């Protein structure tokens, strides 16, 4: 709030009326539930929901000792690193190539941005159909080259499936940011290097890539946030967290434990853990990524 207006209006009631709708929604649907999650995370409810008792940090201790929870952490880590790495590299290659060609850059942009509009759940269904073990067109192709694809039994296949769907959906976003970043790099730098005889390959690694690093870092954070929190629908549509619990990422497990298994204390503790993850990521994003891209 450093920047202030010199000129203001005066009214003791109007500003309150103006922010009232926003505040009412925030209090009712954000702060109150978050508080409830904190409160429930230190309570234990019996199976019939008749009595609750204060158990302190027991729910967290239970989580810490729960192997499926630790496994879910690992699954989420693997998943988000794969999504971020694949998504960023593919988008970077496409953006660099699209940036090179002046003719048709707009057309290419149009051709590559629309997957952003596809809902994660729909993306999950699309990829599921292509890879469906018995009817899928890609799984058929893979069978022809000797790879028996079945994400219903093979955890690695299931992971690959949700990674592909998640990367596909996120490519547009990464592409647009990389393209904007590339277009903001001063042409004179590149020209100077070219005159000095640097090849395009060398120019990319010594000039373009370092200058792009703020964008890359920003996108890395965004992609990790995305794969942590926005991919629930992809997982739910494509694999249901299976086979077994092999693709049950943290948010999926939280939903499952709270809504299907009705373990309120446990799921509240998971909520609290996830909240700290978001807080950490948000702090990183605002602390280090403040001025990421100059347009």
């Amino acid at each position, binding site marked *: 709030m450093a920047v202030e207006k010199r000129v203001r209006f005066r009214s003791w009631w109007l500003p309150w009326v103006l922010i009232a*709708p*926003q505040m009412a929604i925030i209090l009712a649907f954000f702060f109150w539930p978050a508080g409830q*999650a904190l409160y429930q995370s230190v309570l234990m409810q019996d199976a019939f929901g008749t009595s609750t008792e204060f158990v302190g940090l027991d729910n967290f201790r239970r989580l810490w000792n729960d192997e499926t929870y630790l496994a879910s952490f690992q699954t989420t880590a693997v998943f988000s690193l794969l999504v971020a790495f694949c998504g960023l590299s593919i988008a970077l290659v496409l953006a660099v190539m*699209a940036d090179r060609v002046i003719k048709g850059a707009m057309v290419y942009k149009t051709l590559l941005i629309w997957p952003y509009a596809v*809902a994660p759940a729909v993306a999950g269904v699309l990829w599921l159909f292509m890879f469906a073990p018995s009817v899928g067109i890609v799984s058929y192709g893979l069978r022809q080259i000797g790879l028996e694809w079945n994400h219903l039994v093979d955890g690695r296949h299931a992971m690959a499936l949700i990674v592909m769907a998640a990367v596909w959906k996120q490519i547009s976003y990464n592409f647009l940011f990389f393209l904007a970043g590339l277009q903001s790099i001063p042409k004179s730098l590149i020209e100077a290097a070219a005159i000095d005889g640097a090849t395009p390959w060398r120019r990319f690694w010594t000039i373009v890539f370092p200058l792009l690093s703020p964008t890359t870092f920003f996108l890395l954070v965004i992609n990790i946030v995305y794969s942590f929190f926005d991919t629930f629908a992809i997982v739910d549509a494509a694999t249901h967290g299976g086979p077994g619990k092999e693709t049950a990422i943290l948010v999926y497990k939280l939903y499952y434990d709270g809504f299907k298994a009705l373990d*309120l204390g446990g799921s509240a503790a998971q909520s609290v853990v996830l909240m700290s993850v978001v807080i950490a990521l948000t702090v990183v994003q605002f602390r280090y990524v403040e001025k990421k891209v100059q347009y």
Partner: protein
Amino acid sequence: MVERRPALTVLSHLVVVLGALVVAFPVYVTFIASTHTSEHIVQHVPMSLAPGGHMLETYKVALFGGETSYGSKVAPVGRMLWISFVSAMAISLGKIAISLLSAFAFVYFRFPGRDLCFWMVFITLMLPVEVRIYPTYQVVSDLGMINTYAGLTVPLIASATATFLFRQFFLTVPDELVEAARIDGAGPMRFFRDVLVPLSKTSVAALFVIQFIYGWNQYLWPLLVTTDESMYPVVMGIKRMISGGDAANEWNVTMATAILAMLPPALVVLVMQKWFVKGLLETEK
């Protein structure tokens, strides 16, 4: 371009075209599947990649519901599209409206607790639905908003990003405009309506695209707050169609539904491309 390297230029075009094709492939397959019968898809593996002749009947079944060739009942997607449309409009317009109002209050007024309120809005960035699933559901259910449009939309229309965007924009509006408005005898709301809102048109358009897609693509939230089939948005409805397993699914109808579910947000993105790109780069989500 810095220098002439025809080979590299050709390679660039090639890579991007290839990329665009690979990106489009899943949707092409989806469209083709929606023009075949489900028998064809299940019995002729791999299904043919040329369009089949059953497009109209598949889309008719998908849109209006009815019996499929297997004799199973399909819920009409038309209704679901309507639910999605109403929710997406309510969410995007609602977000824009309450964010404009609160950004106006934050920038043009000084009142006790202003900084606190501003920080509260900021903190909502750290509390996505995903981390407070059960307690939020509890609130909605206590308020009797399960299976209502209000339940589907109101909890989602608080928006930190939109508030920040408008605040940022209002800070760049010259003070002279306020002074001029004052001299003309305009009160704060008059200034807001006749000066500030018209000036914000581009930002509003940009945010609208982003938030419409956000609203249309909601999945987890409707999953929590709707239990009645007549209130399912299409994104949720489609997932319920694939519960039968590989061979038993009505793939053609499912894929027609997928196309129908993709079409409105994709159209919004393509028609409003300029604002979409602006909105994406500026709100950075």
